[in-house]
């Protein structure tokens, strides 16, 4: 009879309900519940703090008291499923979409997606940028067979709301929030510059399509075509330059015939 498994099960459930696990006692047994509450408080406090650290803009948008109450609901619905706390919270966007009290704030889910991507970018692998001169020459010489490699932190998000502008407005000293006439879908590029600065940049749809194609392993020429297919203005030289200047291009390879993504 695995008594320890039953014990752990009862203890874990008790953390939520307050019911004491079997056998739990104290020198003054009438104080057992107060003592068990130390664990209940520690677990809740630790997890709420972790969510605060991961979703600071959400907390600023809804206020600390509401955030703490919402965090408790999130913990109940989507408890951590692994030992690394900084990886927890991926379900926050879908949770926010379904959480009735924030139904009037549809952009919260997009802000959560930005904050999740920022956390991933912060911890992404390191890679050195390539020198701009070298790369520009290669790109112009053989655009059909050149594949760019972007920094491991680079992520593109397509948001239903102007999430990038709302996120920026929530930062200390940030710009004013976007006016209602600018309300609409927005794409953002999230990346780490250097060791720790994680930026959120609003991209034109064409630039987003270009970067996404590169991330998918397409050739430079294919990425340019993807950008042009959006029907928006697109300047390949300036798109390449902004990635280079941000230090986000970390290498280039020549696509061999037969490789995935090889132009036909």
């Amino acid at each position, binding site marked *: 009879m*695995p*008594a*320890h*498994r039953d*014990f*752990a*099960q009862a*203890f*874990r459930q008790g*953390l939520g309900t307050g019911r004491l696990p*079997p*056998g*739990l*006692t*104290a*020198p*003054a047994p009438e*104080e*057992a519940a*107060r*003592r*068990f509450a*130390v*664990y209940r408080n*520690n*677990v809740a406090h*630790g*997890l709420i703090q*972790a969510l605060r650290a991961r979703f600071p803009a959400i907390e600023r948008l809804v206020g600390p008291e509401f955030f703490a109450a919402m965090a408790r609901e999130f913990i109940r619905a989507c*408890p*951590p*499923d*692994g*030992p*690394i*706390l*900084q990886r*927890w919270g991926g379900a926050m966007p879908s949770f926010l979409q379904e959480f009735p009290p924030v139904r009037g704030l549809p952009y919260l889910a997009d802000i959560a997606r930005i904050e999740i991507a920022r956390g991933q970018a*912060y*911890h*992404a*692998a*390191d890679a050195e940028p390539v020198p701009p001169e070298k790369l520009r020459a290669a790109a112009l010489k053989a655009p059909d067979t050149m594949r760019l490699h972007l920094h*491991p*932190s680079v992520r593109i998000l397509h948001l239903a709301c102007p999430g990038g502008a709302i996120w920026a407005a929530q930062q200390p000293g940030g710009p004013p929030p976007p006016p209602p006439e600018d309300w609409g879908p927005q794409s953002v590029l999230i990346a*780490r510059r250097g*060791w*720790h600065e994680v930026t959120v940049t609003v991209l034109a749809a064409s630039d987003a399509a270009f970067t996404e194609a590169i991330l998918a392993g397409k050739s430079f020429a294919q990425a340019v075509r993807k950008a042009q297919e959006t029907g928006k203005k697109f300047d390949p030289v300036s798109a390449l330059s902004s990635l280079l200047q941000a230090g986000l291009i970390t290498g280039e390879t020549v696509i061999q015939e037969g490789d995935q993504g090889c132009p036909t």
Partner: protein
Amino acid sequence: MLPARPGIGFKPEHFPAIVQTRLDLGFLEVHAENYMGAGGLPHRMLTRLRQDHALSVHGVGLSIGGPDPLNEDHLARLRALCDRYQPESFSEHLAWASHGGEWMHDLLPLPYTGETLDIVCDHIDRVQEVLGRRMLLENPASYVLFEQSDIAETAFLAEVVRRTGCGLLLDINNVFVSCVNHRTDPRAYLADFPLEAVAEIHLAGHATEDLPSGPLLIDDHGAPVAEPVWALYAETVSKLGALPSLIEWDNDLPPFEDLMAEAARAGRILDALPQARHARAS
């Protein structure tokens, strides 16, 4: 082996102060789970710190006292971390943190029985096998007791040491917190503790609440080390000789000088020990 000197728990806020000044520090300790990303600033800082300091990696996520098998992915990450930084010490807790795939991210207490002794020993065997090194196990701070416990905590730890060959991390604040909470004598606890296996000491602050039956101490790592804990520390090292001694301060972080003042106080206690005992064989 860590130097038998004071160390501090590393906080990123203190990085500039640590690299810019020549510190009298035996070692730094980090929580393993904070360095499990692929890259970026955490690894950059730890790599830099490692150039100047001995390192203790302290895990909080293995759930050694839990009923489930250890998470092998997590063990592999710990192995990679130890391979990368070659810490002088790896330690974890006599506690559990997960059950049934859910992680509470706290150090939860377990009853001490023949069954849990087998579980803990199996888990420590596995950790030591994967990491290829001896680990240290830390005694917990606790707020409750369990009627089903039929082994004393100190006897439980002694048996774990005997079966697995692991060392112990003696947290003297935890001893004080638990003994005050359970209305027992910390000196009696330490008299029963398998002191010969201790390879590191932890010192930390706690908070106090008043219950009708007396004080309830909370191990919050958010205050200076309490005077009775300093007294127990001095008595312990006077018996055992100098040991690596960590000041843990995780919440309500003080100015760096205040943290270093705590480390310096531990250093003075170690310096006052008779010289002969400094050379204690491990």
